[in-house]
């Protein structure tokens, strides 16, 4: 049995838990807590340690999805998590430009931990104020050889597309 892992990261509230939940065959094992800190009262719950999802490929192969906690005070876990990953996805909340800078910082950190392939997912594209992917690319200064994929994390088909785009990128660098 071989296992491989893909990490889903991004700022607070970007949609990481929703993303993994949309596609995992198990109920996402998550460590969500109610938010007591009212400075971040934009939502009810936040992930404090990690999300964990699974996709069984066949008898010999399982894919694990790990979501990072969105808050910086848990970033000591990121490095451990990035060890041996196949690739990673940086989710960006396309309606929250105030988080773009943070998203770029997270992206740089992960690039620093590992040379693995990654894609940027411009999430919440169903909302009317969403920045389109091409504008996000400019705002986040994403290299031209990295994909910025539109995404709706609550929609399984959309999540599948993001994962496939990442896998296509990995395929180009994979060995025979």
């Amino acid at each position: 049995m071989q296992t491989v892992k893909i990490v889903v990261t991004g700022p607070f509230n970007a949609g990481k838990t929703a993303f993994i939940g949309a596609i995992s065959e198990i109920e996402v094992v998550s460590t969500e807590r109610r938010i007591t800190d009212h400075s971040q009262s934009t939502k009810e719950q936040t992930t404090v340690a990690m999300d964990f999802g699974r996709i069984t490929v066949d008898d010999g192969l399982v894919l694990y999805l790990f979501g990072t906690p969105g808050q910086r005070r848990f970033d000591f876990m990121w490095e451990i998590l990035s060890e041996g990953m196949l690739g990673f996805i940086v989710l960006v909340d396309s309606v929250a430009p105030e988080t773009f800078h943070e998203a770029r910082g997270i992206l740089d950190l992960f690039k620093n931990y590992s040379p693995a392939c990654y894609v940027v997912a411009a999430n919440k594209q169903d909302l009317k104020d969403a920045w389109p992917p091409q504008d996000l690319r400019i705002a986040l200064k994403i290299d031209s050889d990295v994909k910025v994929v539109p995404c709706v994390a609550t929609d399984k088909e959309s999540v599948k597309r993001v994962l496939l785009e990442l896998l296509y990128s990995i395929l180009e660098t994979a060995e025979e």
Partner: protein
Amino acid sequence: MALRGNLRDFSLTQLLNLVNLAKKTGALTLGEGNSQATVYFREGMLVHVFLDGQASNLCNLLERVGKINEAQSRLLPQEARSDKEWGLLLINTGLINRADIIEAVRRHTLETAYRLFTWTEGSFLFEPNVLPPDDKITVLLHLENVILEGSRRVGEWKRLEKELPDLGMALRFTTRPEVRLKRITLSPDEWRVVSSIDPSRSIQEIAQAHSLTDSQIRKIVYGLLSAGLVELVPRVKPISAAPPPKEKVAPAPVRKGIILRLIDRIRRL
């Protein structure tokens, strides 16, 4: 006068109670199988524990408990010196402060003492007025607390050791699809363990990588097993003969075949 006997007749708890009540100063040496330990007391307080095969000096000890890392300790001149000299050197290099050293020694002393509570067979020898070697950094711990916590842990260990006898086994995520995982809450330590699960690493190795004691890792693994998140498997030899690179980064190159299988599966979801 020295006091000697067998732990079958006088348990460690009883001996510690005696030392505590009589406010004794001295060294209690215990032997079990091939292991030997010496516990030192000053006026009824625990001041130092020495257990064979454990961190031989302060630098090793701090590395073991994760206060400094291997790279840092490698940078220090390694010639023999006493623990007090080690302490000064470490403080002077700014790697760690005095309070952290004392806290680490305190925790290490306690953890070692708790382990001795599982020794139920073997000899003991109490020698009055024998103090730890001069160069050792000592602490002052109330025996009542040590006895209480030590006895509590023995009960827990007995249970965990029965459930999880062999730390040489490895873990893998449960693959039985019928297992429905409940929403579980992981602590940062549990999370660290979960993120380093790999059938080619023994539980012991995972514990070492994250500076967890045997009992801590047993407790965590037991929790993960009960939650149905992981299962025990015999450790598989890593495919490559080369040891995994310490300073990591480069992921093992993946084969096209694996990626194609992943793509195919996700398309069909």
